[in-house]
């Protein structure tokens, strides 16, 4: 299985991947707390970007409401932990289940009734906004006043209850990002992956060839939703507080799709490259602003907007495809 996964990947690419993985594994040994937090953020965006990419990059369904799945996952696991002390790994089952149901509901409604393209994107936003306002009034999870996880100074890492040091979260996120990369690679090589690409390029042609377009679009939405909700669970236990106004907000949905768009939609490496570029540059900018003594909210987002604008205008396929050609990794 593992040998087959590496089939057809350029040897140079494997070496580069291994080097990157080694570097990221050793990173906490010499990183300060601040750098570690940035490292976590980069891996977080790389992971969520990969999850979003399954829907948009592979199956061609533009979702602008992925914060819905992050939020549902985060709230499901956090509420079970706060109310009943249930381990987040058991809560994860609920989180994934709920997110898959939500994804299936959106997918069913949209694909059954022929809602496509821009209309589909707006439908996903509408559901995320619906959830945001709904959770504001959902008393069991404390509504708009926010849900807080108990915080203490944890001396040892409790992976079962996800209570512990940032280093533990960093390695967890690294494992998830690596796992998502391998999973997406395997998905793309599978029969389903080829069906997705066919649907993305031309739904009519795919249907004419006998691909069950509805079913495979549904699989894409549901898999993407499940993957995204896992990141929500980790998000909740890492930050220990949840507000509907933040976690379900449309700006979060947009933030998490910037990485794969800038890196390269539909590529496996794109979301990772995009997360590195975007988070790295944004934090660099923040540092620069601090040095200059400028403290204005919104600068980071303007920067995000400019990056997005420039990439869309001049590198419509993202940063990775031309970079891969330069490195001689192009198939």
């Amino acid at each position, binding site marked *: 299985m593992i040998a087959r996964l590496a089939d057809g990947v350029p040897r140079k690419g494997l070496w580069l991947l291994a080097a990157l993985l080694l570097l990221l594994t050793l990173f906490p040994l010499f990183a300060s707390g601040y750098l570690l937090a940035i490292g976590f953020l980069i891996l977080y965006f790389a992971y969520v970007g990969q999850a979003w990419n399954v829907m*948009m990059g592979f199956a061609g369904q*533009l979702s*602008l409401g992925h914060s819905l799945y992050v939020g549902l996952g985060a709230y499901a696991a956090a509420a079970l932990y706060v109310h009943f002390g249930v381990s987040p790994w058991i809560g994860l089952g609920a989180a994934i289940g709920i997110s898959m149901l939500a994804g299936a509901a959106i997918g069913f*409604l*949209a694909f059954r*009734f*022929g*809602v496509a*393209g*821009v*209309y589909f*994107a*707006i*439908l996903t*936003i*509408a*559901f995320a*906004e*619906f959830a945001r*306002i*709904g959770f*504001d*009034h959902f008393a069991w999870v404390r509504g*708009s006043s926010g849900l807080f996880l108990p915080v203490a100074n944890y001396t040892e890492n409790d992976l079962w209850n996800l209570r512990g040091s940032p280093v533990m979260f960093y390695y967890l996120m690294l494992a998830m990002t690596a796992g998502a990369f391998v999973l997406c690679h395997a998905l793309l090589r599978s029969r389903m992956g080829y069906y997705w690409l066919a649907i993305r390029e031309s739904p009519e042609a795919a249907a004419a060839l006998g691909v069950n377009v509805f079913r495979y679009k549904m699989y894409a939405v549901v898999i993407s939703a499940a993957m995204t909700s896992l990141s929500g669970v980790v998000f909740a236990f890492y930050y220990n507080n949840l507000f509907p106004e933040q976690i379900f907000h*449309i*700006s979060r949905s*947009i933030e998490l799709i910037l990485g794969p*768009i800038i890196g390269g939609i539909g590529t496996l490496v794109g979301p990772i490259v995009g997360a590195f570029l975007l988070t790295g540059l944004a934090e660099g900018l923040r540092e620069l602003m601090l040095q200059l003594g400028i403290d*204005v*909210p*919104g*600068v980071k*987002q*303007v920067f*995000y*907007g*400019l990056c*997005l*604008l420039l990439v*869309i*205008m001049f590198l*419509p396929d993202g940063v990775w495809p031309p970079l891969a050609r330069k490195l001689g990794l192009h198939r």
Partner: protein
Amino acid sequence: MPVEIYLNVAASGLLTGLVYGLMALGLSVIFGVVRVVNFAHGEMMTLAMYLTLLLFSALKLDPLVLLVPIAAVLFVFGYLLQAGLINPFINRPEHSQFMLLVAIGLILVNAQLIAFGPDAQGIRTAYSFDSYQLGPLIVDASKVYAAGAALVVAAALFAFFRFTLRGKSIRACADNYQGALVVGLNVKHLYALTFGIGAACVGAAGAMLMAVTDVTPTIGPSYTLLAFVIVITGGLGSMGGALLGGLLIGLTEALGGVLFTPSAKSMFAFGLLVLVLLFRPQGILGRKTA
């Protein structure tokens, strides 16, 4: 609760809905012709509202007078946006155009945040607290003026598209892009003109809305969504549909706010959107296309 309260709330919702309708009309015109979904629509709306705020405090002019210069400024803004940034994207895939406007929206909303700060700001006109009494109904004067102005602007727009040569050639571009090119229309110029007209609608609506409500930079995306909900409900690309959608959403939000809690009112608008997408995806007044 007495029936009068519901009637009052409904009337007020309908009046605000007309202003929403004008805003959505801009979105609908842009989509109907250029086939681009303006994801920066609400951000342009708050831009117009801030311009109103600045001009009002500088010149002490009535927002209803200010709507003319502000619509003109937004027209130029929209024209340049289409001519400079969006026209090169006409033949790009749909999601690419969409992301371009998401980027523009992101820049606009946060540039406004940097320029004007996060606090809600409003203006007070001489008639801010006036009201009219019609039988059991008591309606705010500023809402009546704003709704009246929205109707006038919408009527002018209808006339422009129906009776002027320029309006007819824009409609020709909308009906048949290739055909318009063949008969020698300058499609790119007409597209930019259309985006400008759509932006001017938003500008006018923003100036009027400033007389009725406060503005914060971060409300922009909510207005974008509201405009989407309205035009999809009424029928994307249909001008009458946008106004009808605005009335419906204004009414839904107002009644939702009274029957439940005001902070949950947008849920009803989204609920309506989902229902329309499922059962009448072309919208109430939209024409069925392929």
